[in-house]
């Protein structure tokens, strides 16, 4: 347990999600243990005692998350943020804001939600089973706020309603943006000769995708077809730590051992079934997701019903690739129905509020560079539209 709390406290900082020195991560094992000393601990321990949880994380997001989280939290109507991205919609539902740092108040909020935002102080997130849950929730909250903030700015600027405070926050956030990522060293070249090479190539490409900032660890997925077996990352695996977390799924369905495969297995299967590609990469690059939300239609019935993510009827595009609706998994409105056909004649597909799928012929070089280019293109387009 000690190892786990250190791992995730470090990972928060290393991956640019939390400010160095701020993550305070505690977990109950035999005793309540912490990654470090902190004067806040007594208060946080009170929260711990008031909840049926096993892990609690409190940290200040790193820039630019800090600026956007604070701005959104300070201006949230009725103390709740409702980002429109898929992660929030599916797993977090909404992000409550708590303005007073009181144990009782935080306990009340955390009884109902996995995390809360404390403007100016940070994000508090809990886990019922392991510290990893708190890490994942923190990461989702940062991503959701980033996407919401930049999407709001674009919408408000174009509507002429952007406030000076929003503008100031925007300038500050933009100053802290990393430059667009570039890939220098190539990935393993295909075609791959054996299973071991496939696994190595997947681990390498997964890590590169995270390193390039195209997805936060724990999200995204990746697959590679080799001799009628689709090798695919497991559900709840981290793209930068794929060793031992890749499931072989025979395409003839002769084994269900891949029941732990990514929730996007159906989409991946349908994509490779078209026969033109063998590798698939799925990340959550931020500006692609931001642009997917930016729709100017005023009188769209689907939009008015807030069902864009389910069944947007317009042929929308960004950075030259289609934007399609679709939810995680296999439901009626699952992206497994929309992504595969759209990817047939495009180097990539953006899923509304969610992320990007790209594919390659024999290895991951093409898929990764498509992902990079789409995100770069969306970022440029975003600033151009402003």
């Amino acid at each position: 347990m000690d190892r786990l709390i250190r791992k995730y406290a470090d990972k928060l900082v290393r991956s640019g999600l939390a400010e160095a020195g701020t993550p305070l991560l505690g977990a109950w094992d035999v005793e309540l243990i912490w990654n470090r000393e902190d004067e806040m601990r007594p208060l946080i321990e009170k929260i711990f005692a008031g909840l049926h949880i096993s892990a609690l994380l409190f940290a200040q997001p790193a820039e630019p998350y800090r600026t956007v989280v604070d701005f959104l939290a300070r201006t949230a109507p009725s103390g709740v943020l409702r980002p429109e991205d898929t992660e929030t919609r599916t797993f977090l539902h909404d992000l409550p804001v708590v303005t007073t740092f009181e144990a009782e108040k935080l306990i009340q909020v955390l009884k109902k939600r996995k995390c809360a935002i404390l403007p100016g102080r940070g994000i508090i997130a809990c886990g019922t089973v392991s510290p990893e849950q708190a890490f994942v929730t923190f990461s989702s909250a940062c991503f959701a706020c980033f996407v919401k903030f930049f999407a709001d700015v674009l919408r408000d600027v174009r509507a002429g309603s952007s406030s000076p405070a929003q503008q100031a926050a925007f300038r500050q956030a933009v100053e802290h943006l990393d430059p667009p990522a570039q890939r220098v060293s190539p990935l393993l070249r295909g075609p791959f000769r054996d299973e071991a090479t496939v696994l190595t190539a997947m681990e390498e490409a997964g890590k590169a995708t995270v390193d390039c900032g195209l997805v936060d660890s724990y999200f995204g997925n990746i697959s590679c077809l080799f001799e009628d077996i689709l090798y695919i990352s497991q559900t709840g695996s981290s793209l930068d730590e794929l060793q031992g977390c890749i499931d072989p799924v025979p395409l003839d369905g002769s084994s269900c051992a891949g029941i732990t495969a990514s929730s996007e297995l159906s989409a991946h299967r349908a994509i490779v079934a078209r026969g033109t590609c063998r590798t698939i990469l799925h990340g959550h690059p931020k500006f692609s997701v931001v642009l997917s939300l930016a729709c100017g239609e005023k009188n769209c019935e689907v939009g008015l019903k807030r069902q864009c993510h389910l069944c947007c009827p317009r042929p929308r595009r960004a950075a030259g690739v289609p934007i399609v609706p679709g939810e995680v998994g296999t439901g009626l409105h699952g992206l497994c129905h929309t992504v595969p056909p759209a990817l047939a004649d495009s180097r990539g597909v953006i899923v509304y509020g969610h992320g990007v799928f790209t594919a390659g012929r024999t290895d991951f070089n093409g898929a990764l560079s498509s992902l990079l280019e789409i995100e770069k293109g969306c970022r440029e387009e975003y600033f151009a539209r402003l």
Partner: protein
Amino acid sequence: MNGWRGRILRINLSAGQWTVEHPDADVYARQIGGRGLAGSYLWDEASRPWDDPEMPLLFFTGPLVDTASPTSGMMTVMSRSPQTGTVGDGSFGGSLGTALKKAGWDGLVITGRARTLRGIEIEDARITLVEAAPLSGRKTPELYARLKGKGAVVLAGPAAEAGVRYANLIVDGSWAAGRNGLGLLFAAKNLKYIAVKGSTTTRVADPGALKRAQEDVQRLLSASPFLLGDLGIGRYGTAALYDLIDARRMMPTDNFRRTRFDAARGMNAHAFHKRYAPHRTGCLGCTILCKRIASDGRILPEFETLAHFSALLGNAEMETVMEANRLCIELGMDPISAAATLSCHGEIRRRHPGPREILSLLQDIGAGRGIGKALGQGAAVYAEQCGKPEAAMAVKGMELPGFDPRGAYGMALAYATSTRGGCHMRAYPISSEILRKPVATNRFTFSGKARMIKGAEDLFAAADSLTACPFVFLAASLEEYARIFTAVTGLETSADDLLSAGERIDYSERIMNFRNGFRGTDDDLPARFFEEPGTGNGHLEIPPLDRDEFLKARAVYRRIRGLDSEGRPTGEKAAELGIAWSGEIGG
């Protein structure tokens, strides 16, 4: 009232009379329904012998039943287990819960013993006790065919009449309810069946909020590979687990002497689908639909049944598994316990029964004939009688299901601490240890598992009380179900409040077990798991469980659960949880 119907039907079979009870609103709010509410009715009677006519047999629905809540068709049957002597209960689906709610009842409390074999027929407020003597000894499909016009039906089969300790109940002619011998309660009460028809609807406080919360859960179900993924149980039934459990080298094989089955590949869900071309079905109110019916009308085995009638017995014939499953349903007995007892028998006489013998022994058990009589007592009693208690792979007298605990240490702890004996559904640690939900945990460590198991036991106690299908909680959480509960009942709650209720429900069961003589030392596993390794493959070894580590984890569990160092419930903890108990055995 919203959600609940506010009425409990109490039937005294000795007197042939019934009364209606109206529990206070705060009883409902506290005990929720299902397992929680049933437990509160068992509380005062729990120390009677199971076959005491005054021992209640309880059927309870929850507030979510007969609403648009996902998997709303679940309910609980409870009494004292004839097999283990512990609290005996089972959560089951089908259509009975919905019918009972529609008839206006939250629960049934059945006491007494009818003078001759009876059926209970309920149609809304009309209750009829029907002569059922001519139905004695009939097999369940035949019975069901005669009764299905009367509504949803739960019935006991010949195994209950033959005194089989793991006789169960059959719902809708197809689905099993109540492991640990609750079928015997029917026999003890001279009851053959209950049929229910209802025509009213359950009121919901805020249908709009329910719809939104229901959509949130549905979104999570769709996002779950295990539930609705290409290879999930919604596609293949629970047998979808078969390949994975074998691949993880935790398939109980040869009476738990090995953990990998050589013939697994040819016996998996895919093979069954190819051969039997089943169609998809499930409990009322469910969109996962994890049940399968073959084109010839037979039921496809659940994972645990498939695992035990194949690997555990070294049987590589699919048709034998199909027939064994059919026989267990027909005779009304628990397939996990039946297979495990046969396997124990095989170990003791050093030869597993072959395919034909498996089927003939099942017939003998169901009829209480020849050696079937002894085997009908379950593995623990049978092995004891043979002077080989170590051959019974059971906890608290209930046979272990299809997950070898050497391959998942949380599972090891959960088997030991379960309040109803060797059961995987009390905490379902397979969720994180194997299926990676809500996050993956290292299956080969006890670190952190005590808290994880305690939390999961509370969660499933709450789920069994709401009532909702446990499988949903591999995707959704009480966070969503708290909103559903509020939308249905109009009562404010939170995920955390529901966990508190779950904790209280679990602890009450521990107190009842304690009063019935169970001690901390009963929270243990068969010695084999600490002495013999599982079947590794060169890269992955499956060592025996480390006894000291297990005991340490159990000690931590006791602390977290609020038991004393010997594993006994305490008056202080009971008071803290708001349970009225003095801490004394007779208290």
